[in-house]
């Protein structure tokens, strides 16, 4: 079944809203778009995407906007909430109902957890969550899985090492939940004590029979990893500057440490990076994070096509 049949009119709020089969359909469509972009250059003519970003973002917003423009659609954007009616005290529900009257699809990023779900409740058009506080960022998960599937050739029987802020990093939580649905996955969860995965997530992974080890030293995992997923310690998630600075430089992937990594491993990062990957690593063929960003655009194109039910 093509993705657009199953996903037409649906919102994408949590990474697990879509089944592995629906992910697969999106990946297949993303492959078509990547291989023959011209065939899709006019697929969304006459369609309007609204991007509402209540929290700073560059790459995610540009990725969605680039995706829509490459499909021939147009984009309305509120990049700075200080200039919008929200600054006058309008409720999110009213903002969404108004924007839904103008656009065919809404992409929202908001600092509050659950904001995208609330938006979907009040919207007459599909809503895509582009990040709601520390909770979810499902299109990053879509990007990550598409990258792994494309570059490793499969989404099964893989050792995935995830390194950095595993406590507040929403991309990591969604990634682990989504990968747990595939067979033979083994996780190495590398973080300082303070930034280990939250207890409810650990319980959830255990309940689903997930195989994982938690560790502090990245050297323990590097020789076994097929995928090394680095994350940034996010300053905006900390109340205390001192804690942030202490933990920020806990893990830095250097060219020296790369020697421990398998020849055919891939190094991923949701970007932006701060200090966690040395610039010298960028030239290594295993570093795929900029390719990952490009894949993110293709998979968002597939998502837009599917929820709009065009093609």
């Amino acid at each position, binding site marked *: 079944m093509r993705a657009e049949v199953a996903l037409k009119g649906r919102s994408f709020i949590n990474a697990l809203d879509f089944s592995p089969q629906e992910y697969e359909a999106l990946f297949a469509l993303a492959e078509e778009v990547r291989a023959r972009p011209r065939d899709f250059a006019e697929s969304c003519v006459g369609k309007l995407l609204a991007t509402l970003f209540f929290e700073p973002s560059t790459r995610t917003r540009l990725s969605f906007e680039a995706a829509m423009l490459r499909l021939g659609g147009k984009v309305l954007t509120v990049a700075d909430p200080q200039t919008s009616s929200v600054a006058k005290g309008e*409720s*999110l*529900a009213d903002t969404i109902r108004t924007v839904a009257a103008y656009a065919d699809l809404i992409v929202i990023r*908001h*600092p*509050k*957890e*659950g*904001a995208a*779900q*609330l938006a979907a409740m009040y919207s007459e058009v599909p809503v895509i969550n582009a990040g*709601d*506080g*520390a*909770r979810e960022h499902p299109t990053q998960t879509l990007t990550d899985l598409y990258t792994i599937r494309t570059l490793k050739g499969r989404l099964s029987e893989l050792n995935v090492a995830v390194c950095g802020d595993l406590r507040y990093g929403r991309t990591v939580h969604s990634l682990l939940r989504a990968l747990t649905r595939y067979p033979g996955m083994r996780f190495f969860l590398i973080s300082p004590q303070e930034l280990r995965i939250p207890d*409810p997530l650990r319980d959830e992974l255990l309940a689903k029979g997930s195989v994982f080890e938690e560790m502090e030293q990245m050297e323990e995992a590097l020789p076994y990893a097929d995928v090394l997923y680095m994350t940034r310690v996010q300053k905006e998630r900390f109340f205390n500057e001192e804690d942030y600075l202490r933990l920020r430089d806990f893990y830095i992937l250097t060219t020296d440490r790369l020697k421990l990594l398998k020849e055919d491993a891939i190094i991923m990062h949701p970007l932006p990076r701060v200090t966690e990957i040395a610039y010298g690593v960028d030239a290594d063929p295993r570093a795929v994070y900029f390719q990952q960003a490009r894949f993110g655009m293709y998979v968002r194109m597939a998502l837009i096509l599917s929820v709009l039910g065009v093609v």
Partner: protein
Amino acid sequence: MLRVDPIQEGIVLDHIRAGMGLRIFQELGLGEKNLTVALLMNVPSTKLGRKDMIKITGVLDLDLTKLGLLDPGITVNYIAGGKVVRKVKPGLPERVIGLIRCRNPRCITATESYVTPEFILVSPETKEYACSFCGERVRV
């Protein structure tokens, strides 16, 4: 021993955890309804040791979700013609709408006050619920 006559038509809330009777009486607003109500506290019980009971004469539409949340062990006996015609054990509700507020300051329900909070039961053993907006867990 104190005796309260059996009722002919109404509801008996049985197996209330000792000490919870007054809270349930208040939460159900039984003091404001024009019904004959008996609240029995610390009644000897073979099952619980001590229990509270509430006997209500007359017709009343009970909020079983709220009752289950307040005391999942409770038994609701519906009485007609002096006999128990229906017995319900509400237990912990799977979904609670509007009765619990989310304490997470980062939750959207903290700022958008028109939103009705909704919680989903995630662990009956620990009586834990998760906010369906932000995932924050609370124990009831």
